[in-house]
């Protein structure tokens, strides 16, 4: 269970992690500046298990994988958006950062609401408003990939087991 942080449409990768911090790729360094140009209160106050909720085209702009790395490293459990920009979508899954497209949930969650998400079933519960939303769950292989921590550990694990 976590608190919802809410952002608008077209949140770009420069807002998620400004380029001035890309001289290092250490996840904790990136996490300390996550969403800094959008909300200065985010990085110091976000807690493990919190949920990031946003409008359409989340993650537009640069191809920097530092963006989902920063979000994951600061403890966000899942990003729920109306839609995702193409490169961000691939990058997030490739590093094992869960994301769900669910416009109804975005409309039905306000900043600060307590939210639980079941990634296996795609169920999103807003405990504050006592409402429920159903996102399309990931197929089993993608759930495994996310659990493994991303594409590289997933491929390595399969090689070892295969």
């Amino acid at each position, binding site marked *: 269970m976590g608190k919802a942080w809410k952002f608008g449409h*077209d949140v770009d990768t*420069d807002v998620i992690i400004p380029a001035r911090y890309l001289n290092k790729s250490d996840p904790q360094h990136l996490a300390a500046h996550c969403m800094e140009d959008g909300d200065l209160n985010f990085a110091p106050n976000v807690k493990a298990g919190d949920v990031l909720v946003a409008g359409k085209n989340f993650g537009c702009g640069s*191809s920097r*994988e530092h963006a989902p*790395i920063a979000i994951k490293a600061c403890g966000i459990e899942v990003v729920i958006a109306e*839609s995702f920009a193409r490169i961000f979508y691939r990058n997030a899954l490739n590093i094992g950062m869960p994301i769900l497209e669910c416009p109804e949930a975005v409309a039905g969650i306000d900043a600060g609401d307590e939210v639980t998400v079941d990634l296996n079933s795609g169920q999103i519960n807003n405990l504050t408003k006592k409402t429920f939303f159903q996102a399309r769950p990931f197929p089993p292989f993608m759930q495994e990939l996310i659990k493994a921590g991303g594409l590289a550990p997933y491929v*390595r694990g399969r090689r070892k087991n295969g």
Partner: protein
Amino acid sequence: MAMTITEKILANHAGLDEVVPGQLITAKLDLVLANDVTAPVAIQEFEKFGTDKVFDSQKVALVLDHFAPNKDIASAEQCKFIKEFARKQEVKHFYQVGRMGIEHCLLPELGITLPGDCIIGADSHTCTYGALGAFATGVGSTDLAAGLATGEAWFRVPESIKFIFQGNKFQPWVGGKDLILYVIGKIGVDGARYQAMEFTGEGISALSMDNRFTICNMAIEAGAKNGIIAPDEKTYEYLEGRAFRPYTSCFSDKDARYVEIMEFDVANIPLQVAFPHLPENSKNVEEAAGIKIDQVVIGSCTNGRIEDLRTAAEILRGRQVHPEIRLLVFPGTQNIYRQAIKEGIIDALVEAGAAVSTPTCGPCLGGHMGILAKGEKALATTNRNFVGRMGHPESEVYLCNPAVAAASAIRGEIVHPREVL
């Protein structure tokens, strides 16, 4: 079955006779590229795959352009890490200061991005190479690492949108930048999300290669997977003596299918300025007239080519940059820089009061070499005007073409070029 140029290139690289939009394929790659920001993460991921060697050292490009010349110790460490990887892997196309340029200006100039190619780059503006009739798309570092290891990438075949530019009667000073800003203004920053943008028509045929690079460069600003222009005589002329290896051109079939076809008459497209904080906020330059600015930037992978510099010099020659303005000019590559010296462009710009830099992505992404203070405004020929893009989160960036940028640098506020000539 009839296919678009994008579908044909993907089919060729997937070893298939045909592909259809929505189909998932694995395609062989002709070039895999990364820069000093994205390569370190990609190399770390590459090493996790448990592979020793890159798939083909001739088909990898590593260009140190974002924070180079190294802006601080951390950036220097990143560049050193990449250099060591490049040497160990015998990467053919490794470029650092002195030989490097802004990657999307440099690689076409070197003739290693070619018609019919399938290219991935860990940089969103990789779509630039579509101007040569290649399929080129930006990816993240993990996808790039997989490409380095295997020489392949998986794609969902995109639907295509066709943009037809009718006529060749451009308004004065209008170029590729205005066409693409106009289109993004019409369809929005997610108007082509996941899709291919195919640019065609008499208006495109009339444009030089430099202008075509500008158009395809900004396809990502509409959310597109790729932008593409079929090769023609101008493309082949550009490639003469430049092409690094043989290539096979592809063209859309007459009855290829598009999810949408949009037509514009170039005569109706005025000079554009995109207001903060999205490229889709593009308007007629007249609507921006009078906005006071602090800095003007001419350069970047969007508008740092020789014709862009020629345009700027044409306006600035014999005139002076406004005393309140900082004008920064970034030639895209060492060759462009030399050419500009030979043509007297650099002399004219410096004489006018511009600061001319070695090639770097620097200010475009708020990296270094021209950062904005709180409350400052910049007018730039770059590609993004997001919050904080060029510096302080409360600074602002307006986007335009090199003519509007040069004229506005003289006036100290945004202005139509005719007002200063």
